[in-house]
């Protein structure tokens, strides 16, 4: 389990992480989402032992990550800008990784050769961005990590390869109990793979729940009232409200049956709960945190 408590990190006076708290359960695929500059990458760099926090704690299975090779050996990461040596080929990087990860699986390396279909002797710098990403996956998967930290992992991959990569990750999670922490802006994709989600903004984690819990706790209702829309009771938490003609679309936070019961008191002509996507939850949650799409005419 990854536990981050009250993490603070400041860069030249800018508080990139401001009392951030994250808990990633063992074996979970945890999606970390948030607007640009929210602090996601900074948080992930702490988890890989690159950054040292100003304050707060960060543990993996109860042990600090900072300067702890025993823990870091169990973590593999693929940052957004994966590093390889200028002249290195995949094969050379494999040899390099083997020197750090004692559990590096050469057999898996050979197996994955058929999946990625890359020339392992070609200098990595001559590969396309997508191919470099595949190479990073190839090597990271062979490190047999217990924890996989991914920052925009499938950026640059074609749709087939995306599915392929996610398939491999899911397989590792299922078979080896690998815990995955993934940061991405592709909410549609995360929705398919994640079982836990954390939303970050301005260095803080606004909320984190299991995906089902999150979806159960946010309800999108389409309502047609007889006449003008009534004033809704204060007990209902409205995240967003809009209307097209007489059809009102209202996003509530709360349990679906409680909200339906409350709305039924106004005897609506039409009342229906519509499934809410992760993207919508993201947008409406951040809307409450002063981060919303602004209506502007150019």
């Amino acid at each position: 389990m990854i536990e981050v408590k009250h993490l603070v990190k400041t860069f030249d006076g800018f508080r990139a992480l401001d009392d951030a708290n994250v808990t990633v359960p063992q074996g979970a695929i945890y999606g970390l989402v948030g607007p640009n500059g929210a602090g996601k990458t900074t948080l992930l760099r702490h988890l890989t032992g690159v950054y040292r926090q100003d304050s707060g704690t960060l543990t993996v299975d109860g042990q600090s990550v900072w300067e702890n090779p025993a823990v870091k050996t169990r973590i593999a990461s693929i940052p957004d800008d994966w590093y390889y040596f200028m002249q290195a080929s995949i094969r050379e990087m494999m040899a390099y990784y083997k020197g750090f990860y004692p559990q590096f699986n050469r057999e898996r390396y050979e197996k994955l050769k058929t999946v990625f279909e890359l020339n392992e002797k070609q200098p990595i710098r001559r590969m396309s961005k997508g191919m470099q990403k595949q190479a990073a996956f190839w090597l990271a998967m062979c490190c047999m990590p217990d924890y996989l930290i991914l920052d925009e992992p499938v950026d640059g991959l074609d749709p087939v390869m995306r599915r392929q990569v996610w398939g491999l990750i899911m397989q590792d999670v299922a078979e080896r109990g690998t815990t995955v922490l993934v940061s991405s802006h592709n909410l549609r994709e995360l929705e398919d793979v994640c079982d836990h989600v954390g939303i970050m903004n301005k260095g803080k984690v606004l909320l984190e729940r299991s995906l089902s819990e999150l979806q159960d706790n946010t309800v999108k209702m389409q309502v047609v009232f007889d006449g003008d829309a009534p004033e809704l009771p204060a007990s209902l938490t409205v995240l967003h409200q809009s209307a097209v003609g007489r059809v009102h679309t209202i996003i509530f936070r709360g349990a679906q049956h409680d909200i339906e019961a409350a709305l039924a008191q106004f005897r609506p002509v039409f009342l229906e709960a519509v499934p809410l996507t992760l993207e919508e939850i993201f947008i409406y949650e951040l809307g409450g945190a002063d981060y919303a799409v602004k209506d502007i005419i150019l």
Partner: protein
Amino acid sequence: MQSKTSFFNRTVFLHDLKRWWPLTAGYALIWLLAMPLGWLTELNHDPYLSAWNVQFDALDIAGNAGYWSAFLTGILFAMAAFSYLTNPRATYGLHALPERRETLYVTHYLAGLCSQLAPQLLTVLLTMAVLAAHGAFSARLLGLMLLAFVLPTLFFYSFGVFCMMFTGQILAAPVFYGALNVLVVGVELLIRTFAGNFLYGWAENIEPVLTPFSPIVKLVENGVRATQDTYEVLENGVIRVEGTQELQLLGLDWLLIYAAAGLVFAALGLLVYRKRHSEATGSTVAIDWARPIFKYGVTFCAALALGQLLYFLFFGQFRSNGSYSLPGTLGCMALSGLLGYFVAEMLLKKSFRVWKSGWRGAVAVVAVLVVMGCGMSLDLTGYESYVPNQNDVQAATVQMNVYNSSAHTYLFGIRDPETIRLIIEAHRAIVSDKERQLRLNDSAQPWDYTETGAVGGYFSVDYTLSDGRVVRRRYSDVTIFADELGDPASLAGALTALNNSETAMFARALGCDYYNGDTDPRALPDLRFTGGDAYVYDNDAYREASRTLTAHEAELIYDAVLRDVAAGHVGGSLFESESILNGSVTLYATYSAPDRPADRGVSDTYPSEVPPGRDMVTYDLEITERMTETVATLRAMDVDVTFG
């Protein structure tokens, strides 16, 4: 569970060696061409070179080239080893790997060091192989050559690594490295020049004392070369040279000191690396606490260096110490300091927009410079007016000469109370005359006595006080007025009194004024003249003659000099140019020196016939036409003296 600390990662080490092999190979190629191939060619060309000469030259080359190449390439290997710290992707990539900072540091450090040492080792071994084929193999030479290479490499490479720890910009590393190698001496000289602008009597022409903290300067100054002598500095400052039969590496002591310092720098580098933040990559100065040091250091150096250059160009070209334009020097220094401050701020913030955020620091900088300048100007420390009490002075050295005149007094290590009193009086007269002297210095003065009734002169004095402190003062343009000669309290009077003192006359006549005061014959126990040489010429008559003087003749000449001194024939006016003997008269003497071992000399030219328990002294007489007793004695010995 925290893992056990390991300091070495084989994969990283081997990968490093492989990654920068072109640098290693290029370095090896240069050395192989320079040393083994060079020797092979030379020995084939001249097979009759003696083994000793070959060994000597080989060590000489290794000694000189060893530290220069270490200095020039140390930073290159350090940059290769830690270049990843200047690239964010590389830093994050390597720091995310499961290894401690200690392991990464030590492994990269060793890889860089081995890459630099391996070509050197190969060069030395191949050179020795070539020399062995010529019959010039020597295990001692092998050891000394290895030391000549390894020791400076250890220092300069480690220092380069230390510099790398402080920056996240690859191009800043060689700049820091080069600057820090000469910084201390540079700043010392700048501060001295700065003080010299303000302070009347500032002794600016003394050797820097902080040279050991500027390694490359120290090594160049000290020299690292082959020798077969050993050198020892005696208590009285004389360097004793002792010949040995073995090859020595001169400067080995400093190489050892710097190598030890290199290990300290390597350890300090590790401490800095452990504290260094990964996100500092790309910063000119990567360590938080070093940033203000960098900023104000650049400011200070810019104010001193550029400020003084500007001042010199605009105001100070024709001024002497203590004569200055306060607004001019403060303005130039403040302007240059501000320039340095904002440039440093731009480098630190990587932005040109630093005016708004940096103005407070800029104001502080200007304030400090103004306070420094005004403090110097007001002589708050009392430097200019200080003249020691006679009771506090243990010894004094004075040098005085008068331009366009033969008057001069050079007295070294004087302990005689009366002479010290005269030196202090002369010094006090110059200090009292400060305002007039500076006024005169501000405008060009013709030094023709007939026009101005004044002459210029130079006066410097070094006091060794009872508490061990040394006080130095130099006055380069002292104006002396002839119409004040009658007033003993005036500058002219005080300088004349010193010039005509018995000690000064005695030293001048015997020519022992250039040496340590210990050569004063009156102070030497059991002085016995052993002989001398007289060489005279007469250009007008196209005649020259030389002869050897016996011990007795030397004794007679010495007695004649004493009579001339007693009769006041040696002194004179500061405004006169006396005629001096065409030629030279040298007297040799020995004196009792029980501590001097019989089996060694004190210099290369030391005569071997000096008996055990005695030491030798030489006097080159300065004979003027007015020294009638000496002249008559010489003529009585058939030495045909003329004057010019």
